[in-house]
């Protein structure tokens, strides 16, 4: 698979064309948090409904490139309905994936424990080979982490 095909995998294009959990939640009671990438103008707004230590619901709006949009869609599918502890660990695992050095990605292609726990999110592993696009992939995740931190305060 070429680097480009690895970047634009079918799962990513699918989430870009048909984003999951798109929309808004009434806020309040939901918590609303916004993220911007001033360099390329990408924007994401996330609505979080947290009950009894569980991320009961999540909705997103915003616009941006296929990487930022599919990453936010994949993220929403991965964390929706999960206990907050699991959400935090998924965020950590995903951010580690984005920090992975190129050679590490080659070695771990398909079979590392991290990639397996990430499920569909592993499709975003190809982004690491395009350093300028990593910030596209991480925008929604950083925004989610910020939102959860705001809720916990």
């Amino acid at each position, binding site marked *: 698979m*070429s680097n*480009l095909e690895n*970047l*634009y995998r079918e799962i990513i*294009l699918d989430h*870009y*064309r048909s984003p999951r959990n798109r929309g808004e939640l009434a806020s309040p009671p939901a918590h609303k948090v916004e993220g911007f990438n001033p*360099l*390329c*103008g*990408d*924007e994401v707004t996330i609505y979080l409904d947290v009950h009894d230590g569980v991320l009961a619901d999540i909705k997103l709006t915003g*616009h*941006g*490139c*296929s*990487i930022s*949009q599919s990453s936010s869609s994949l993220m929403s599918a991965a964390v929706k309905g999960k206990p907050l502890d699991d959400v935090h660990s998924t965020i950590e695992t995903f951010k580690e994936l984005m920090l992975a050095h190129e050679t590490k990605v080659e070695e771990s292609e398909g079979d590392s424990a991290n990639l397996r726990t990430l499920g569909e999110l592993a499709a975003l592993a190809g982004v690491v080979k*395009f350093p300028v*696009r990593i910030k*596209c992939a991480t925008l929604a995740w950083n925004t989610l982490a910020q939102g959860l931190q705001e809720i916990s305060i």
Partner: protein
Amino acid sequence: MTSFSARRVRADIPQLTRRVHGRPLTYLDSGASSLQPNAVIDAMSRYYELRHANVHRGVYTTAVEATEAYESSRAAVARFINAPGAQNEIVFTKNTTESINLLAKVWGAAHLGEGDVVLLSEMEHHANIVPWFQLRESTGVEVRFIPVGDDYRLDLTNLDELLRDVKLLSVTGMSNVLGTKNNVRELAAAAHSVGALVAVDGAQSVAHGPVDVAALDIDFLAFSGHKMLGPTGIGVLWTRESVLDTMGPFMGGGGMIADVRLDGFTPAKGVARFEAGTPPIAEAVGLHAAVRYLEGLGMDNVAAHERYLTEDALTRLELAFDGRVRVIGPRDVIDRGGVISLDVEGVHPHDVAQMLDEYGVCVRPGHHCAKPLMRRFNLAATARVSFGPYSSTADTSVLLEALEQALKMFG
């Protein structure tokens, strides 16, 4: 005598021999920075190999040669834009941005205050907006904008009203997003009629066609070396000698003084007053070579070549994509330069640029440092194609092939 052949220009540019992802480089980002011909690279190498010394100080032979090389570049740049006061009117800066900052922070701070207006346009680069907002914070000057119409050109319907209390009109010669060339001569006449001075951001216009400051009857011109086949790190602010004489110094340090005592300093006379510290000497040598190279091509020829490329590209984009690739800029190639901003249906500009890179095609995605203009057209970003004297219709063919693939993948 000028002679223009795009094929010969291409052969003069070493970077065009590079391959990216197994493909020849298709460089369509000259609006951001141009590629350099051997003449420029060699002139800078020769300078560093044999003639380098600091300028304006030494009495030894190479120091005198370096000073001559630096000052002769000033004279060449003055000739290139037909500055009436020749080298006495050319201030070397870092780039266009620094030139406009010098204008705002020195001339603006001294001559403008509350009740005065600086008139800009909605199609300006941030470099011709932010320094004026900064000046507003310190002096209370009002900043006003000429709107851009749906035809991607300045809407001059209410120009008389907009010009009220204006002391400076500062506009771009050519939009770095739309490609629109403004009628600077007409705008300058209108501004002068109310007693305002006229500054032109020439970052795009100087590199792609003839610019004659005397014929345009403007008062300031700012431009960059690296967009006109020269090196990075050098820019120019031209202004009339009579205006220059009313301007105090810019940054303080060596080279810009006539005298320093324990109780103060006296600034140098002339352009030296604005050039504190060791200037970009090798860059001035490179810019001189770039100017000579462009003069050899003939700026009329460069403009005609790029107009031909623009017409060809606009026509083929229309025919190939049937509206799926929208051009954000005038369709008419009269008063329009070779900058083509694309909005590709269903494909974000970053993804367009990423796909194009796979074909060795260099285009720029983003807001192009013109966010007010992007907002005007409800766009977050575009993918921008821009030509240089070395560009060819073959470059456009590769662009179309790669765009086709992008539409296929995301469609």
